[in-house]
């Protein structure tokens, strides 16, 4: 049961190759812009056709290139919340929601029920352009649920909202998604949104999907360079494996001890800004740096450090401690247990 996706599509310079499974609950699809997230959703919804592959929803085959099955979007029962919500501008909120109800008989009753449940009674006669962003999102979601979909696809649902509106709407959406029984795909480029809405996540990197993992895994132990970058890791360097779990890191100019066996094909190493530690002097994994800049953020400071290599290191500094002053050498430790060992793919 759930949603099974295994599709390929060639766009010339860009090749989509996506393969994942999403069960009940919210699965995130995380990737930088232009990595193929939206196309993937369109292929699942049936408004775009993959070159080859297989899509299955709760045991129902929606698309299969070998068996020449390609259900129309009308028959897939996949609800899609588009980035701009795609409300019909020529219809009122009420008519928009009614347009989603499939059975003629209970159209009015179902529309009323949904308008009540989504707090849209006051805007029933309004047109989409007269609604706030949050109301538009609610109306679009109500319209989708009116069509009784078996799966939900959400394409960057917060990108059209002002950030100060987002918080409340995010909580509201999370509650509504929790009540939906069926797989939900949540597409986003933002790790905060994925973190807030999803249980598991599939990272998409330049058209290729990586294995589904839990959100916790993504943030604590990302396995690939793309996943690590998307999880918000500030410090990344190329890494040349040496023997005994040691690494050469040319971008930072030094050798690192990892204290564990290196994964096969590893090419990069990462460490989060908050995991760098200030130390007194030389030692294992200690680097002599100079503080280039001190950036004061609302709840912490960030030090930009010039390491022996080409790349800068970013180090988080807690707000309650005084930021170190002076131009002298500043020693930091990259604790071995905090190093993230990464492969390219």
């Amino acid at each position, binding site marked *: 049961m759930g949603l099974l996706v295994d599709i390929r599509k060639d766009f010339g310079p860009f090749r989509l190759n996506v393969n994942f499974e999403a069960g009940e609950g919210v699965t995130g699809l995380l990737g930088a812009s232009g990595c193929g997230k939206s196309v993937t959703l369109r292929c699942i919804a049936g408004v775009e056709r993959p070159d080859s592959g297989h899509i299955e929803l709760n045991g129902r085959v929606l698309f299969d290139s070998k068996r020449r099955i390609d259900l129309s979007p*009308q028959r897939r029962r996949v609800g*899609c919340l588009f*980035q701009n919500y*795609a409300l019909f501008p020529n219809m009122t909120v009420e008519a928009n929601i009614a347009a989603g109800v499939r059975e003629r008989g209970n159209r009015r009753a179902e529309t009323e029920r949904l308008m009540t449940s989504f707090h849209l009674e006051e805007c029933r006669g309004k047109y989409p352009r007269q609604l706030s962003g949050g109301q538009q999102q609610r109306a679009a979601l109500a319209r989708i649920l009116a069509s009784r979909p078996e799966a939900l696809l959400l394409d960057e649902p917060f990108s059209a909202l002002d950030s100060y509106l987002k918080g409340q709407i995010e909580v509201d959406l999370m509650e509504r998604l929790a009540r939906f029984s069926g797989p939900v795909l949540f597409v986003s480029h933002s790790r905060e949104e994925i973190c807030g809405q999803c249980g598991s996540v599939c990272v998409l990197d330049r058209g290729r999907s990586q294995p589904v993992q839990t959100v916790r895994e993504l943030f604590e132990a990302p396995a690939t360079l793309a996943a690590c970058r998307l999880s918000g890791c500030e410090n990344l360097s190329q890494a040349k494996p040496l023997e005994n779990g040691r690494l050469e890191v040319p971008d930072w100019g030094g050798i690192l001890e990892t204290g564990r066996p290196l994964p096969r094909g590893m090419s990069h190493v990462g460490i989060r800004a908050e995991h760098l530690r200030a130390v007194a002097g030389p030692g294992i994994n200690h680097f002599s740096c100079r503080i280039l800049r001190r950036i004061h953020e609302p709840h912490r400071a960030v030090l930009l450090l010039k390491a022996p290599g080409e790349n800068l290191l970013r180090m988080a500094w807690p707000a309650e401690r005084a930021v170190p002053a002076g131009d002298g050498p500043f020693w930091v430790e990259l604790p071995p247990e905090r190093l993230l060992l990464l492969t390219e793919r």
Partner: protein
Amino acid sequence: MDWYPLYNSLRIAAISTLIIFFLGILAAYYVAQAPRLVKGLLDVVFTLPLVLPPTVVGYLLLRLLGPKRIVGAWVLEHFGVRLTMTWWSAIFATAVVIFPLMYRTARGAFEAFDSTLAYAAQTLGRSNTWIFWRVRMPCCRQGILAGTVLAFARALGEYGATSMIAGYTPGRTATISTTVYQFWRTNDDAMAFRWVMVNLAISAVVLMAVNMLERKERGKRRREQTKEEAAD
């Protein structure tokens, strides 16, 4: 003054606009969605009458519809009807000449249409016919309306192809434009001037209608904008 040319011009323009309204939209709808190569080719064919001299259009139509030509002869033989030199022959001429105007404005409107609206409707289970009439057409209404008015105005003023295929017979095939020419040719300056004034009056009314449509659209957009700014 014999008002027949006015009546004849209006009915020719009205009928040809009605026909081209549907044909133009149909052509625009398919071209807007066609693959690139087909699109380029069809676009050239459909736009051609816009740049051809009306006399060339008239000549081609006579080649096709004349009583001794393929289509004309066939219709004459099977239905006993001559396709040229009747009042409605002018409809062929005006229809061909105004088709590109309707087609191009409608295509512009369809191409500006946000196709995610159609996708959304499809995933909601709505048929493509429903989407066309309930979403696509209403969203493209302004462009299509403007195209229709423009096509109608052009049909009223058609002279070249009309005079070739329908000729000038007072009280039968005379239109405003052919009447003006006829009076001028026969040195009846007063009558020619009257018909020129009639023509100017009609054209002014049509252009005012186009402007009103545009102003309505612009006003709507401005209202939306101020609303958005107020919301910010």
